[in-house]
């Protein structure tokens, strides 16, 4: 089966590169021209949008991602790669042979490789670090750990921070752990925490790949982040204090207060990955471009670091973390389909919003991005709403210069979309990649967590929704 999937993937990529309608090398100069020219591809999209029916594979895939693990888990676990690649292939074939727009496929392939290189490298390197915290689990110690996790998630991603900290967090709380401990970890470390940098959360990284400045998010939303994290941590503290008072007497163990770390050399690998994020010819002019290849120096470094760190990893750290490639394999396969099938969705959103963009306000972008990010993956949702917001001003998300104009023109829209996509990812288990990973690690340690609906009804709606409503009232209500 694996061989079949690899062949299928290579086949679809080879179609992209060696299609009779598109020769990559011959069209390199044309590509540059199209990207930079005023008469660029977005004009073609506005005049000649893709067929609306081509959104069907995207919708089908997102619905299956949302419902598969819940309602037909066994089928989904064994067939998601086939489903994702098959749906993606429908879009690839349409763009190659019917819509004749291979350039959009090429852009998407480049973004996919960048995206998966970052996630894979952070996942593998963080998986080789084992942290043991031998401290008593007090509410204040938990608050400090979660706050540190929120900051770290901006440096190594919500996926990396979740991988790094969930086990030490469970170990520290093993004598009195309850489902809410894990759920607040998902809220803070796996989602809201990563809302400051493009490394933090996949939607923001996709925005960075589209051309949004690296420090744009932290400059514009740091105070919203601080308020959200502060409020959620305060609620956690009150709940945890109650639990602590009833259980503290049961914990007779003596603690050394030590923090032990195995696999320290992996921090050096993490540093290399973070530095390599900036190694983009668009960001630093001295970085050589590897055109016509669909990846650059950055991606080569990231994959190399992932490979070397795994080969040279501390085996005890891997064993302690029960390291497994399955989560990243799942992300890689699902996002092949998501990236491919969302091309027509993005283009149609830009086309439609160009027509009635006047009616779209920051409120709509905040709640729209947020609510859809809760039930769909937040990365494609972010891109769809970014495309819509840009379409409102006649700008195209596929044009680097247009993105630059958009981020400075009126930042309220980009702020609403960024906050909505990242924060609302915490509303359900399926809102963001690390949520399911943390759930899975916790359950494989023996902690019974609430069902999909239990999570939403008992935790997200009573805790997160009031916080997000307050953020809307303070920062986005009636603006834009």
């Amino acid at each position: 089966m694996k061989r079949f999937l690899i062949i299928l993937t290579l086949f679809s990529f080879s179609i992209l590169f060696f299609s009779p309608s598109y020769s990559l090398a011959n069209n390199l100069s044309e590509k540059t021209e199209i990207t930079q020219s005023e008469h660029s591809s977005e004009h073609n999209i506005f005049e000649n949008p893709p067929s609306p029916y081509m959104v069907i594979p995207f919708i089908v895939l997102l619905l299956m991602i949302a419902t598969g693990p819940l309602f037909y888990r066994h089928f989904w676990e064994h067939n998601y790669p086939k489903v994702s690649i098959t749906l993606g292939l429908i879009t690839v074939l349409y763009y190659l042979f019917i819509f004749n727009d291979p350039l959009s496929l090429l852009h998407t392939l480049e973004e996919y490789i960048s995206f998966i290189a970052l996630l894979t490298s952070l996942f593998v390197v963080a998986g080789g670090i084992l942290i043991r915290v031998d401290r008593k689990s007090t509410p204040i110690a938990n608050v400090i750990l979660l706050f540190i996790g929120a900051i770290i998630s901006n440096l190594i991603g919500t996926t990396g921070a979740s991988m790094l900290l969930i086990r030490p967090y469970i170990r520290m709380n093993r004598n009195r752990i309850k489902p809410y401990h894990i759920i607040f970890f998902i809220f803070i470390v796996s989602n809201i925490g990563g809302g400051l940098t493009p490394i933090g959360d996949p939607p923001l990284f996709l925005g960075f790949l589209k051309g949004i400045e690296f420090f744009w998010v932290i400059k514009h939303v740091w105070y919203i982040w601080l308020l959200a994290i502060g409020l959620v941590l305060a609620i956690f503290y009150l709940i945890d204090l109650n639990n602590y008072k009833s259980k503290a007497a049961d914990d007779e163990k003596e603690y050394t207060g030590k923090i032990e770390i195995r696999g320290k050399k992996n921090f050096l690998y993490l540093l290399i990955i973070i530095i390599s994020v900036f190694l983009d010819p668009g960001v630093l002019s001295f970085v050589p471009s590897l055109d016509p290849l669909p990846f650059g120096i950055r991606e080569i470094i990231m994959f190399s670091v992932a490979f070397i760190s795994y080969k040279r990893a501390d085996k005890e750290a891997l064993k302690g973390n029960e390291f497994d490639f399955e989560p990243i394999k799942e992300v890689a396969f699902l996002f092949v389909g998501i990236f491919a099938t969302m091309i027509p969705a993005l283009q149609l959103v830009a086309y439609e919003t160009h027509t009635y963009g006047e009616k779209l306000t920051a409120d709509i972008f905040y709640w729209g991005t947020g609510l859809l990010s809760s039930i769909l993956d937040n990365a494609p949702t972010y891109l769809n709403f970014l495309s819509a917001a840009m379409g409102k001003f006649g700008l195209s998300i596929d044009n680097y210069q247009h993105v630059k104009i958009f981020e400075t023109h009126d930042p309220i829209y980009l702020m609403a979309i960024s906050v909505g996509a990242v924060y609302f990812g915490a509303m359900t288990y399926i809102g963001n990649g690390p949520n399911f990973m943390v759930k899975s690690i916790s359950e494989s340690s023996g902690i019974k967590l609430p069902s999909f609906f239990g999570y939403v009804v008992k935790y997200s709606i009573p805790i997160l929704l009031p916080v997000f409503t307050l953020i809307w009232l303070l920062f986005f209500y009636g603006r834009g």
Partner: protein
Amino acid sequence: MSTIKEALDKKRNGIYYNNRVILPFKCEFLKIIFEDKIITDFSSSSSEVEIIEHDNFTDVYFKKYKDIQNEFSKYDNIKLIVCEKSDDIFDFSKHIKLLLYIENEHLVRIELPEENQIIID
């Protein structure tokens, strides 16, 4: 050979064939953690597992899988919380946590968890 202690002392391995795991001891099962599934229903109507006790060993059938080898990496494991037949099942200090590693050639390596490895009772 029928107690957990004897099996651990003599470093006995279990074996598996497809979805059948054969453990070299008899015990009372309290919890099985198979990937992220927490199994606590060991009644005859359980849809997840079926346990058959023999004189010197125990069969555990994972009903939802054809071959459990496909489900685990080399660092991944099945976790058990069990109790010796002769011990008081109501005494939490008598509960034993075990890790089962699925190896090649039908071998199931049985280990006690190290301090780094977490199993919540």
